[in-house]
């Protein structure tokens, strides 16, 4: 089931990909925690670290490749679904595409502004109000205070927060944080939107709203990349899909084909969810 390195595309050849990864590899140094570490052991560990500074494989730590040799491109108007089992590298790929995690090898090219939502509200400062957090996040994403102010009513309305926008984020429910994060990611007008497992969370009303946003992005020829476990959802909203397996791309192409192969591999119900 090896795939050609050249990504499948229905666009004319002169269209440049809005986001692409070439021979991308990302590794992590994993430090193991000993269960019963004695003083002597931690000393040995320390010496170990100094004597082996070239070679990073040791009893205590290991270099782990979360992604290897990933070639991938998405074009304007593409809605790409990322599927794969837990730990297959979906989140790492999204983080590498967003530039949050640097590439150890290969490179990532992005044309335009990237908006991303990696998790529900982890990036918020708990003691600040929702409004203050919108200002911090918005300014980090490159918006001026005026631009943020202009978008604020839309963000508050989209997140359905009402006057809670001025309450500290620590008082928010998980759903409220998630809606606010999604509202910010969408309202900075990104050209590429990266979503990690967030479409499936939230209530039905919010999911419908999120779905309509994805449709709007498609019609505006923007790119959305969604990591999701739901084959049904990926079939419904995506035109392309990428199947990640242990850090490499197992298969990519047309969403229906890839999800069918994925479902067959793991004997899961194709119309699940």
């Amino acid at each position, binding site marked *: 089931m090896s795939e050609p390195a050249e990504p499948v595309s229905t666009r004319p050849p002169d269209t440049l990909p809005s986001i692409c990864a070439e021979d991308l*590899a990302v*590794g*992590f*140094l994993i430090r193991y925690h000993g269960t019963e570490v004695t003083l002597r052991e931690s000393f040995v560990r320390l010496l170990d670290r100094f004597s082996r500074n070239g070679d*990073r494989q040791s009893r205590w730590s*290991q*270099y*782990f*490749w979360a992604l*290897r040799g990933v070639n991938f491109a998405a074009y304007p108007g593409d809605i790409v679904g990322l599927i794969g089992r837990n730990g297959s590298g979906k989140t790492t790929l999204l*983080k590498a595409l*967003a*530039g*949050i*995690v*640097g*590439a*150890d*090898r290969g490179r990532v090219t992005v044309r335009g502004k*990237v908006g*991303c*939502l*990696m*998790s529900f509200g*982890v*990036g*918020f*400062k708990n*003691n*600040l109000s929702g409004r*203050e957090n919108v*200002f*911090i*996040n918005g*300014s*980090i*994403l*490159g918006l*001026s*205070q005026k631009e943020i102010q202009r978008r604020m009513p839309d963000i508050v309305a989209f997140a359905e927060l009402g006057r809670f926008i001025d309450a500290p984020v620590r008082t928010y429910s998980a759903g409220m944080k998630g809606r606010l994060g999604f509202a910010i990611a969408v309202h900075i007008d990104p050209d590429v939107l990266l979503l990690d497992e967030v479409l499936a969370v939230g209530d039905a009303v919010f999911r419908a709203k999120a779905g309509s946003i994805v449709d709007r992005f498609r019609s505006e020829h923007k790119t959305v990349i969604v990591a999701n476990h739901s084959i049904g959802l990926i079939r419904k909203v995506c035109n392309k899909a990428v199947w990640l397996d242990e850090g490499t791309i197992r298969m990519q192409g047309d969403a229906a084909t890839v999800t069918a192969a994925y479902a067959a591999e793991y004997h899961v119900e194709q119309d699940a969810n």
Partner: protein
Amino acid sequence: MPSVEPQAEGRAAPPRLRPYLRSLYARRETIRFLTISGLQAGHRDKILGNLWNILDPLLYMLVYYVVFGILFALAGAGKTIQFMLYIFVGVLTYRFIESTISQAANCVRGNRGLIHEINFPKAVFPISVVLARLYDFVLGLAILIVFLLVARVWPTAQYLWLPLLVASAVLFTLGASFIVAYLGAFYADTSNVVTVVMRLLFYCSPIFYFVRTVGGFEAMRAFRRESIRAIYMLNPIAGYLESFRDALLWGSAPDYGTMLYIVLISVLVALAGLALFARGEGKFAKYV
């Protein structure tokens, strides 16, 4: 499982300094928001609130006065107010440097959430820590000047050195914060080390004693007093304290050698810190 050997670290070309500074300038609003939130967040739940920014150094000054001015009788007869002012300059300046560097040790780890969520120049964190503490420092200096006026220590032309001294202290603190924040991102042990080092510097700086007493002890007879003092003055914090006191309290021009030294050190530390931080920040998300 990893069949591919990891490449040497730092393979990605380190960002050039000028574009990095430009990208930081583009985030000036972020820095402003983080600074303001850093100023407010610390004291929001307290009854006295932001008053603590002023109360803290004042109370510390009183503590040192009681211990060293009264118990150790360092103040000298009839010089209570002078000794208090002397300590206050020391406490203000030292606290600015110390609290900034201590906070910087955790500023990357403390913003783990944001770092995993969005890509941006992480230097906004140490910079906003420095700016928040600088606000306290300048406020403290203003209060100090009021005290000086009350004590009839009138302003002199030496006040003109203050902008240069403050700028140099800010550069030094900023550079040290970059270095400590960089180390803190990779090693959680950093804050422990910083605490101990800052404690050492606290005792090795003329906060509650006088430089002229340094090296004057029997046990140090084997060394020339001047050489001991020269080594002592290598600590830039000592240089800042002495220069600030010259300009504010004694109304004399700061020692030019000391000034040159602290300005040079501060520029060097700032450049080294920024270069180190900019080079390492791409890896932060993997470690914190």
